[in-house]
């Protein structure tokens, strides 16, 4: 077996994954903090005001990365859920279920920041725009997945059921997005285009990209942190869990 596949198989072991996550979560967390400071410094102080939207466009540096994350995490969650369903890997199930709340959080942030960007730009906190509406439905789907996971007693059954729901949602999300887009073109004229036709100036693009990477690092940190808790809970009767939590007693 080559090194990479071997490492992958090792990651499937809860104990190895627990240690791996514990090692890397702080790194991801601190890089997130550093990149956020750099990105927001560039975005708030270095980037010039937009010639149409003035200073209000600065919401973009958190709104757009959050929107990307809301979709990125959904795909990541479904992929982990698929692996968990097909190969019955405990760690994959846990990764999928640890992702769901983070994805829901980013979706919520996207909606709220979008509303607070929309108010000065469109004159209303909420308009039934295609992107807003499909983002709202995405939030509902996330909540459904989390709700199903919480509602089922047995943790592994719950994870498998919720993963299946996530996969069903994955098939449906493009259809929902398409239908909603179609619906808005039927019912109203084109709304204000947030990004504008012109390509972004590098002084605005760089902070945006840095924040996009930063939010991904936040996800990595957060998902590992949550997965560690879930693994510990699931494996609390295994000897390795005792070794991890009370090294002195276990050696006795």
């Amino acid at each position: 077996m080559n090194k990479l596949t071997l490492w992958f198989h090792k990651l499937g072991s809860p104990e190895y994954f627990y240690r791996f996550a514990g090692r890397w979560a702080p790194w991801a967390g601190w890089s997130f903090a550093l990149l956020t400071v750099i990105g927001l410094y560039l975005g708030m102080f270095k980037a010039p005001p937009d010639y149409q939207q003035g200073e209000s466009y600065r919401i973009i540096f958190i709104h757009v990365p959050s929107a990307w994350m809301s979709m990125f995490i959904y795909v990541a969650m479904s992929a982990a859920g698929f692996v968990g369903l097909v190969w019955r890997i405990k760690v994959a199930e846990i990764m999928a279920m640890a992702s769901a709340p983070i994805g829901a959080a980013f979706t919520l942030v996207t909606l709220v920041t979008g509303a607070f960007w929309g108010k000065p730009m469109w004159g209303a906190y909420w308009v039934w725009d295609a992107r807003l509406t499909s983002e709202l439905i995405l939030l509902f789907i996330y909540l459904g997945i989390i709700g199903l996971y919480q509602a089922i007693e047995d943790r592994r059954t719950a994870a498998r059921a919720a993963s299946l729901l996530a996969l069903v949602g994955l098939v449906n999300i493009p259809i929902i997005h398409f239908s909603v887009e179609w619906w808005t073109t039927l019912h109203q004229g084109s709304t204000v285009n947030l990004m504008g036709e012109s390509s972004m100036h590098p002084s605005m693009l760089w902070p945006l990209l840095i924040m996009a990477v930063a939010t991904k690092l936040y996800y990595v940190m957060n998902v590992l942190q949550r997965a560690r808790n879930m693994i510990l809970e699931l494996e609390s009767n295994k000897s390795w869990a005792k070794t991890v939590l009370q090294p002195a007693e276990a050696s006795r």
Partner: protein
Amino acid sequence: MQGHSLATAAFALLSRDLRLAFRRRGEALSPILFLLMVATLFPLGLSPDPEQLAAIAPGVIWVAALLSSLLALNQMFHADLRDGTLEQLIISPWPLPVMALVKVLAHWIISGLPLTVVAPVLGLGYGLDGATVKIMFWSLLLGTPTLSFIGAIGVALSVGLHRGGMFLALLVLPLFVPVLIFATAGISASAEGFAVGSHLYLLGALLALAVSTAPFAIAAGLRISIS
């Protein structure tokens, strides 16, 4: 099992479900009554103005139909879970997706088909013209089976839960959105005198997708829930 083909098994399951539903007619009729009630409440709550009613009719009737089919979904697997039929289906030699397909079909005949027949009549009450009512019929005929298929996935996943009702709504309502949009847009387009072909084709495409993929998801969901 000798001499029994898959078709016989499927037909036996279908006729069993239909006979059971026929014996509990009152229960099977409640979604229809629900639809009628909701459709009656809207004119009372808004206004009896025919023009206004015609404008909201597609949305109101479709949302009412959607909610009533959600109501009917609750009954889909519950009795089968309680008397052990579901477990028998899972351990039977017949492929579970096919059996799931049959169950959904039976459920649609019991709940979706009456809706398809009754709702257009309501459309007349809302002042829609004949051609539009016909489109409403077609949209329901193509749309309600898709709702049953999507809904069955949600039921399969939540069948063992105690407080399934509200919960099921949270699971499946977001997935109902495309059907609702295409159907109501088609009816509105017909009322305004536009071509409706594309709307109905899209509904048909959704149905084709649901028929071909949902049974596998339902089967997988049942296997997860009943273990």
